């Protein structure tokens, strides 16, 4: 009987220990190993800072600036699908598909087999994180006020950038209707409620929102904090002002364009200096080495080294054996024979042309960093503004600065008014080719898509302006999930 009691006691004891421990809270507290809760993230300056850095990472994602955001607008005349032996259009290759549809203007709201369809949800995903930062930053007590403001400024600037991209992708330019009252995009100005089914704001409202965010960002951002390391990879007040200049140009607010660009360029002493133009003698070298000195804002892609995600290089970069895209002969024909920039055009073995802007050296798997803003664009924007306001001499001077860098022998331009405007636009196309501007520029200039060298069997080669295809269709999935959305007319 004694042994029995002993067993019994031991048995019970074991059970009691187990049950007591089950009441213990610690047993049930398990933290995810590779994730932080939202509260934890935003309870510290370090976490908030990491969340802001995360937005830069999101911008450089394969869904966004790694290639698609830059290549899509170029398909309207500067780039074309690279045909391989046995290929026909419409191409059905695994990667070529996306750009074939961009090239032929054959989008459908269902975006079948088309990775451009992820633009919409991806850009709003970026906005979720941006708005989450903004919703939490005011509760943060760590760090100095200046530092917290600077983080807030960065988030606001990024909110403006993403809205600017959304409205350029999915809506007609502000000039499309008087007062820009046509449908823009849904403005994401706060953390979303999942029950919200918002209407599209008008293009005018979206631009007003963008301008407001940029202005607020410019007043808050502080390069002491935002410039976390050397290089053009961080937002500063210079970057924000440059964006303000570009946004003003889309709105044809020419006085504002001049004011913003002058703040960055005016000699002798600009308020905040943009980097100097890359000198002619180093221009090609800097492009080829991913070191362009005149970059104002670029996204760091040093992390992306997997060959399968080579972004722009794999699409159209020199050094890739089988590029997905080629440079259109329409663009090639624009460069005078002596033009320095012609040397950035490289013939491939297959007879196509690719670009040294996105060069990939053998053995070097470092991707070229996508450039979002550079000093040349500021001069070109200012030239456009001067020309539009009839300040011909100043416009000519800015034009010459860019044109003569590439064509040292070129004489000063003597064109005026519309001819000058046309020359500046062509120079913009030459200088900023393959950098994500062309279709957006045509749209804001109200110009047709006019291609001479279309590939065979293309369904749509040219577009008259206006045309519904200047804007991408709102994805059908977005309309299903938010019935208040109105599809772009024409789709």
């Amino acid at each position: 009987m004694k042994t029995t009691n002993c067993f019994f006691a031991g048995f019970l004891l074991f059970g009691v220990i187990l049950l007591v421990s089950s009441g213990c809270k610690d047993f049930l507290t398990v933290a995810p190993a590779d994730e932080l809760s939202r509260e934890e993230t935003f309870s510290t300056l370090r976490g908030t800072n990491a969340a802001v850095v995360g937005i830069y990472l999101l911008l450089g994602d394969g869904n966004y600036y790694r290639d698609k955001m830059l290549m899509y607008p170029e398909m309207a005349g500067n780039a074309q699908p690279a045909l391989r032996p046995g290929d026909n259009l419409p191409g059905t290759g695994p990667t070529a598909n996306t750009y074939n549809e961009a090239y032929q203007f054959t989008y459908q709201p269902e975006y079948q087999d088309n990775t451009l369809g992820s633009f919409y949800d991806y850009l709003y995903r970026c906005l979720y994180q941006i708005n989450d930062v903004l919703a939490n930053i005011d509760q943060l007590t760590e760090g100095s006020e200046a530092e917290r403001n600077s983080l807030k400024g960065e988030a606001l600037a990024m909110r403006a950038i993403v809205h600017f991209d959304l409205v350029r992708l999915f809506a007609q330019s502000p000039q499309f209707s008087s007062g820009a009252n046509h449908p823009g995009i849904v403005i994401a100005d706060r953390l979303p409620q999942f029950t919200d089914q918002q209407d599209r704001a008008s293009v005018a409202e979206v631009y007003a929102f963008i301008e407001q965010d940029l202005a607020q960002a410019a007043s808050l951002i502080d390069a002491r904090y935002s410039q976390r390391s050397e290089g053009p990879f961080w937002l500063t007040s210079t970057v924000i002002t440059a964006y303000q200049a570009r946004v003003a140009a889309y709105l044809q607010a020419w006085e504002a364009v001049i004011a913003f660009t002058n703040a960055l360029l005016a000699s002798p002493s600009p308020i905040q200096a943009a980097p100097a133009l890359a000198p002619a003698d180093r221009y090609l070298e800097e492009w080829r080495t991913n070191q362009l000195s005149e970059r104002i804002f670029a996204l760091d892609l040093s992390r992306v080294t997997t060959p399968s995600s080579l972004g722009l290089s794999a699409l159209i970069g020199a050094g890739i054996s089988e590029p997905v895209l080629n440079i259109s002969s329409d663009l090639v024909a624009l460069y005078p024979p002596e033009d320095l920039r012609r040397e950035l055009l490289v013939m491939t073995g297959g007879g196509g042309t690719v670009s040294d802007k996105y060069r990939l050296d053998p053995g070097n798997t470092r991707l070229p960093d996508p450039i979002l803003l550079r000093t040349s664009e500021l001069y070109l924007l200012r030239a456009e503004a001067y020309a539009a306001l009839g300040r011909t001499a100043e416009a000519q001077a800015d034009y010459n600065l860019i044109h003569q860098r590439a064509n040292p022998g070129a004489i000063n331009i003597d064109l005026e008014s519309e001819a000058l405007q046309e020359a500046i636009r062509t120079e913009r196309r030459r200088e900023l080719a393959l950098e994500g501007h062309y279709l957006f520029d045509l749209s804001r200039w109200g110009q047709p898509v006019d291609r001479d060298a279309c590939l065979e069997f293309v369904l749509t080669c040219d577009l008259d302006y206006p045309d519904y295809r200047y804007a991408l269709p709102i994805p059908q999935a977005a309309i299903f999930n938010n019935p208040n959305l109105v599809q772009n007319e024409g789709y």
Partner: protein
Amino acid sequence: MLRWLLIVCLGICLPGILGAQLMVKGKVTDETGEALVGVAIRVGDSGSGTLSDLDGNFELNVKDERVTLFLSYTGMRSLTYPLDRATITTTAGGLRQATLSLVLQSDVAQLKQVVVTAYRGAQERKDLVGSYEAVQLAELAPDRPEESIDKLLEGRIAGVQVNLTTGEPGLPVEVKIRGQSSLPRIGSGVAASTQPLFVLDGVPLFDVTETNSTGSVFSDVNSQRINPLTFLNPEDIESITVLKDASATALYGADAANGVVLITTKSVKNQDRLSFQVSYNQGYAKPIDEIKFLNTEEYVELARETLFNSNRNPAEAGTTEVFTDWRALVQRTSTNRDLDMVLSGGSAKGAGYRISAGYSELQGAHLRNGLEQLNLSVSLSVPLHEKLELGLRVNGSTQKREGISTYNAFSYPPNLPVRLADGSFNNDAFFARRPNPVAALEQNEDETNSKNLNSQINLSYAPGTTLQLRWLAGIDYISTDQFQYFSALNGSGAAQGGSLRLAQNDNGQWVSNVQASWSPQLGDAHHISLLGGGELNSQTQQRLVATGNSFPFDDLRQLRFLPADRTRVSESLFERRKASLYGELAYNYRYRYYLKLNGRRDASSIFGGDQQAQTLWALGSSWNISEEKWWGSQPLGISFAKLRLSYGITGNSRIGVYTARGLYRFTNDVYVDQVPLVASAPINDFLGWERKQQANLALDLGFGTDNPFRLTLEVYRNTTVDAITSAAVPLESGFTSVIANAASLRNQGVELTFHYDGATDRKWVYNSSFNVARNRNVLLDINTEDLPATVGDPRAFRIGEDVNSFYGIIFAGVDPATGKELFQLADGTITDEIAPTREIANLVKLGSGSPDFFGGWSHSLRHGRFTAAAQFNFSYGGLLFVNDLTFQDGRQILFNNQSVNQLDRWQQPGDVTDTPRPSIDKPLVSRSSRYVYQINYLQFASLSLNYRLKTGARTPLNTQQVNLFALVNNLGYWYDEPRRENRNTIAEYRFNFPQQRAVVVGVKLGW
């Protein structure tokens, strides 16, 4: 009468004869009267005994009749026979003699009377309050070449649906009990698991289907999940019990909402005889109902026409000179082999052991696709003390699965050559996009090695007859390593320069459980039983995926040969803990009125804040009407009647890795030199446990003496409130969907089960079991109605409809004038325009994937040494959306061979057909009734024949048991849609990877 005689006899004789020698003669037979050879007969505790001879006879001398005989025999229920029951005669010589005729019952027959229940062990069927269906493994024809027991359950239990989505071996199988009680996943959303909880000897198994990894690096693409039930050797399983209503499942609380399946392994017999069994079987299988595709001549003709119709050059259709049978090149006759050995025995003191080893090999229908497995299982039962019993079971398995993708080879154009003139593989432009399957089979690798350790220890202590204490602890560990290599030499890996994926999945869990049960003796009328216990459970899941590409040499398939920047590693660690308390109070009055109240409180680490703990409970009652005095003797032939009623609330917490508070993830990447955080899950304050209110009413009837006819009729109504739904949200929120407890749905239905167990002493013994179930599923409420979640997916959630409903446009035939596809819009107009087919207003309900009724019918017939068994399954009223048909109409003709049905296409004005004019740029309307098929079928699921040879010392191997068997698995399907000569119908379209018909022969030997 007999009893009286005995008492009188004892009364008279007792004083004189006690202590006198007794000679016992006897014969042991089975239920059929067949003599049993080598039955161990032991006399009390003395250790002496004998074995029955070739005719089943034995003789023993015992000291008097106050001893008890113990008989044991493999595969038979042990028999305890007190000799004082025997009639003793005294011969003329004064020799006292008893002649016995003993019948041993087979395990199966015995076990039919008891049912394994949650935490309670076996209970007698008549005392059950909840809804239990038990099936012995032997009834499931376990020799069928199915690698996991869940597949064997199909058609056996009313209300249990087993959906075979693929014919590939080793992958998870979808099992549903009483319909779909959680919303299905649409698109890439998160959804709660709809699998029942599988419990192996008290230890819950992993639910591999719950992980919501779609789209992530840990998805099936990179790391294939293995069905944990494949690790179990069917030879080791005794029985399976399916728990259906709240009263039966409530003790499993938060994981019980989808029903519970209890798997019980073979117990250790208390026998001191060593027994050894070997069985071997081998099978061959061929695919049935394969989709018929175009041959070269037909393909080229159709391709040319399609290209011509699309203003393209018909010459692109390619040559008519090449005849490649892609299917024949990648398929083979599939085979399976199984070898099992079982050794069991024990000591006179009640200790016992059972050791089993199994080897099985399954070569799938596709080359280099198969499964090979080795199992070793040891069970021990040791009485440590007269009141303390130790049980131990350790099961280890290793499994190798090969699963190289053949890239749907059957749909490759038949006029493409596999090899070029020089004998090398054809890797031209086409094969850069769709890899050459023959080259892939030769050059690629995809192998998964898995190991499973599942062990359980339990100590039970019974200090008296009323109290029992038990401690049970179990560990279950599954480790899976997958190696996939896509060779640079073919299109699957050419673009990446060869690509390697290593995936490692470690699932570990432990359970510790303490419980006490107390059943005080309160006299004849009142019976009370109390059960209480606590359980801790911890699960960890560790995953690692490493990838690399651009290999310098194709045969150096190791990541270490790559520079670091061409490799990538992703890791994930997930841990979940649960603490639970449970209890049960059972009461009955004179075995007539039963009342059972049980419940469980679960606290889990995966939910945040106040949602952490949840109490779930059930109340059940039953009334054994036939125990009432007024019932009399079998009115209407009804010998047994019972009414059961239960209501309760159970939960479903299995929603995978999740938190409701919003998460940020550290990415593998850095930005310049900073470590970024990226939002991985939105804030979601309202996420909690799914709860299911279950009501069940049942009637059990037995007819005739010993109830050879048994009938169970059950009616249930289950309402899932707070159903977790992956609700589509406006994309402007930054997410396409979120999880919310924002829906409720109801399953209600009727189940009828009918058993007939023929008398075992007849010449022909017939058993049959029939079941049919009807379940109606209705979505009662959802926050975002009417939003078909993803474009192209025909499923959507609408209130008042089945959650598995399809929505789409009605296909209205083909315009004889133009050959265009016609659609009927909501307002009745017929159009060939595409734009209106995308409007939600024009999408109508096309039907539902859930059948109106389904069930199975099994038969077994024994005559002498022959036993024949057959199983039929049927389903009526379900629909299937055949997604692959959207590749037709010439749309992808240069990439996909087309169904032979495409030969009926429209060619010229006036053609009346249902197949439109083919063209490459034909717009796709995937949500169309054209792709929806009825699946009404009767399946002849299996037919088996078993012959038992005469055994004993006279046979060559001196065996005690020799069985020969042959079976045919999956003889075929009858559909109500007639098959068409040289055309495909639902019979062919139903399975993309065709079903197999297998023939298996085998032998079982026992010593």
